[in-house]
């Protein structure tokens, strides 16, 4: 206790490797302001990432050179305020409190300066050399924002340097300001006006010891009854700090609202005043088309019709009719029908052994079925779907969708945020099942996994179904209605059965943007490549299994076993094969259905019933494996056991209803 000085809780005491000979520069700032970009600029990005002792919060350290001097640059997790109870905030508080850095560099977003300045004031209160790096100046200029650097710098009492971290402009000025800041005296604490300010000064004046942070900041923390601050005062003050702690406690009690608000309010007021004085915006935000269209898309009255039009044009017209109709037609009839298949058949004609020939070119041949499905049916449909998907994605539409569905999703025990896995499920359910990990509660994860397995068709399935019914809008509406109804009804039941708290929804809405052609093309090609590399081997594998099944007679046996089930849905016996295909891969099954319909085996009712059943039916093997992995054996098997009767039950009922209506 006798040596209770700053040194006893210096950086060394935190367990961090501290190289005392080097200047330590800490980057502080709110999330997403370009801290990492600046960090990379300053360090050349050979960094070590370490967890701060006792936490899982990552901080990166790197070596840099400023004005010929070797320095250590430390990146801290992003945050808006130093007061707060999140792990990050506690960590950064401890780090600063223990004198972990010699110079603080706050990185701020020039477009949102008034929201950033309250943190600046907190840093200045700490009484350490501080530099404000106003980043993203390029974007600010584009938004018509002007900044009076000199004025802001004078008012804050610290250096203010405008930079563009990604381009590297302003970095040299910033480096000079950091070196200068390290030599100069620490800034004077800001003066707050009303009761809180007086209280802070009053407490500050009673502090006699030496602290690694300024007395204003310490006083603010004491009034907020911060434990670390109280402990430091007990250690440092000669009388154990009784007097000053009592004053602080009394002040804590005199304020009616929690004192944290009072202080935060006061700081923000000061920040607003600062921003008003030195930031001007010539064009008001919210007047550009992106913002206005964004608002229209987020309102149900305009957003829902717009969504329907987009889905109609994108899915029905583009994916279904153009991709699944015109393009598949050409590929199947011309490319495969006239050239590729005859070529392969001639090629294998010389092979005398029939089973081997049929492995490659038979009814279920690797080349004539597997490759044909993959290239002529799935590829154009999936390609069209991914183009549509990437276009929506690149325009920034998805967060609006999250907002629109939030209320409905709440009924299903999910928040609007769950559209992330659901939308990804429309691309690939297997991947989406893995993404359910990002949902906050276990309940949400289970419900989302279940709904993905039950009612979300993957891209190929969706595309094939659009193509199947492209000529029958009525059948398509029935399919859509049944699938959506199942999603909502079963989801709502699921939310009832699984107890737990409802999720909370909050989301930042980035402005809508004009999709960039190069982005859209790149993302589409990337998705198609991924899909194709994944799908082709599995399709070939499925062909081999089916061939084996035929050879051994197992396949006929299974088909016959499925016969009664298929008949009870009013479907012809050939569809049993489709369901068997479907279990290998949903899309393989859908492609099989597509084939049957083109042969004219199925009527409208049968197509609709089969499409509904196949959509609701169990996911492909890959997705089931992912469910096992992510949710565990018991949950996954339970889902399997639930989904099978729901799928076939829905098909059965639908058949009855449609037959009686006709």
């Amino acid at each position, binding site marked *: 206790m006798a040596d209770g000085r700053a040194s006893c809780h210096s950086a060394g005491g935190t367990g961090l490797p501290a190289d005392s000979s080097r200047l330590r520069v800490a980057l502080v700032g709110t*999330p*997403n302001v370009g801290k*990492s*970009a600046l960090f*990379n600029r300053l360090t*050349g*990005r050979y960094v070590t990432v370490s967890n701060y002792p006792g936490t899982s919060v990552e901080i990166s350290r790197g070596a840099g050179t400023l004005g010929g001097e070797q320095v250590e640059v430390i990146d801290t997790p992003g945050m808006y305020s130093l007061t707060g109870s999140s792990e990050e905030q506690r960590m950064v508080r401890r780090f600063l409190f223990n004198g972990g850095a010699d110079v603080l560099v706050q990185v701020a977003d020039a477009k949102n300066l008034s929201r950033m300045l309250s943190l600046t004031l907190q840093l200045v209160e700490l009484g350490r050399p501080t530099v404000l790096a106003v980043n993203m100046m390029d974007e600010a200029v584009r938004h018509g924002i002007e900044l009076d650097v000199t004025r802001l710098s004078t008012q804050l009492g610290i250096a203010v340097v405008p930079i563009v971290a*990604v381009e*590297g402009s302003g970095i040299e000025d910033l480096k000079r300001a950091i070196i200068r800041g390290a030599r100069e005296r620490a800034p004077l604490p800001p003066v707050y006006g009303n009761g809180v300010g007086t209280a802070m000064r009053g407490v500050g004046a009673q502090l006699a010891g030496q602290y690694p942070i300024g007395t204003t900041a310490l006083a603010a923390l004491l009034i907020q009854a911060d434990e670390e601050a109280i402990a430091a005062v007990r250690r440092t003050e000669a009388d154990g700090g009784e007097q000053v702690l009592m004053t602080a406690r009394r002040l804590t009690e005199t304020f009616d609202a929690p004192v944290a608000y009072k202080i935060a309010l006061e700081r923000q007021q000061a920040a607003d005043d600062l921003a008003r004085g030195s930031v001007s915006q010539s064009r008001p935000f919210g007047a550009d088309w992106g913002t206005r269209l964004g608002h229209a898309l987020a309102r149900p009255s305009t957003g829902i019709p717009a969504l329907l039009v987009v889905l109609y044009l994108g899915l029905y017209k583009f994916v279904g009719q153009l991709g699944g109709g015109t393009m598949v037609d050409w590929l199947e009839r011309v490319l495969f029908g006239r050239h590729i298949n005859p070529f392969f058949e001639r090629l294998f004609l010389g092979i005398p052994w029939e089973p081997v020939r049929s492995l490659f070119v038979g009814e279920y041949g690797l080349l004539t079925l597997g490759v044909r499905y993959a290239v002529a049916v799935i590829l154009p449909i999936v390609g069209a779907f991914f183009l549509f998907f*990437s276009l929506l*994605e*690149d325009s*920034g539409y*998805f*967060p609006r969708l999250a907002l629109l569905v939030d209320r409905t999703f709440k009924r299903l025990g999910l928040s609007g945020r769950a559209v*992330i896995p659901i939308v*990804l499920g429309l691309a690939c359910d*297997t*991947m989406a099942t*893995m*993404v359910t*990990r*990002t949902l906050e509660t276990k309940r949400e994860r289970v419900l989302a996994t279940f709904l993905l397995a039950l009612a979300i068709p993957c891209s190929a399935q969706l595309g094939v179904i659009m193509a199947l019914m492209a000529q029958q809008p009525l059948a398509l509406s029935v399919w859509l209605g049944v699938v959506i109804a199942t999603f909502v009804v079963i989801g709502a039941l699921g939310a009832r059965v699984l107890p737990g708290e409802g999720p909370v929804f909050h*989301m*930042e809405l*980035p*402005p809508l*943007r004009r999709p960039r052609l*190069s982005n859209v093309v*790149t*993302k589409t*090609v*990337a*998705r198609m*490549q*991924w899909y194709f*590399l*994944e799908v082709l*081997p599995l399709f070939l594998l499925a062909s081999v299994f089916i061939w084996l099944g035929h050879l051994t007679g197992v396949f006929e046996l299974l088909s016959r076993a499925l016969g009664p089930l298929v008949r009870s849905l009013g479907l012809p016996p050939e569809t049993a094969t489709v369901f068997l295909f479907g279990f290998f891969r949903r899309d393989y099954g859908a492609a099989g259905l597509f084939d049957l319909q083109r042969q004219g085996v199925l009527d409208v009712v049968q197509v609709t019933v089969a499409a509904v059943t196949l959509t609701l039916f169990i996911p492909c093997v*890959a997705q089931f*494996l*992912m469910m096992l*992995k992510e949710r565990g054996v018991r949950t996954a098997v339970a889902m399997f056991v639930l989904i099978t009767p729901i799928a076939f039950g829905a098909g059965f009922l639908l058949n009855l209803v449609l037959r009686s209506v006709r």
Partner: protein
Amino acid sequence: MSQATARIMICGFCAREFEEDRAQTACGSCLLNGGCRWARCPHCGYENPESPRWMDRLATWVDRHAR
């Protein structure tokens, strides 16, 4: 002009940017074959497709020969 060393991606969902190598790639835990390349956004969890290397090379080539 000094080049940024990391590839920056803009998340397709939340529109925030992140460095490709800061993303948790899904492939590690993926059951499918290793052909996929996805970058999970550290801010929201959305899986973004990484652009295939051959496309990058193609783009560079086109850039070089376009003038």
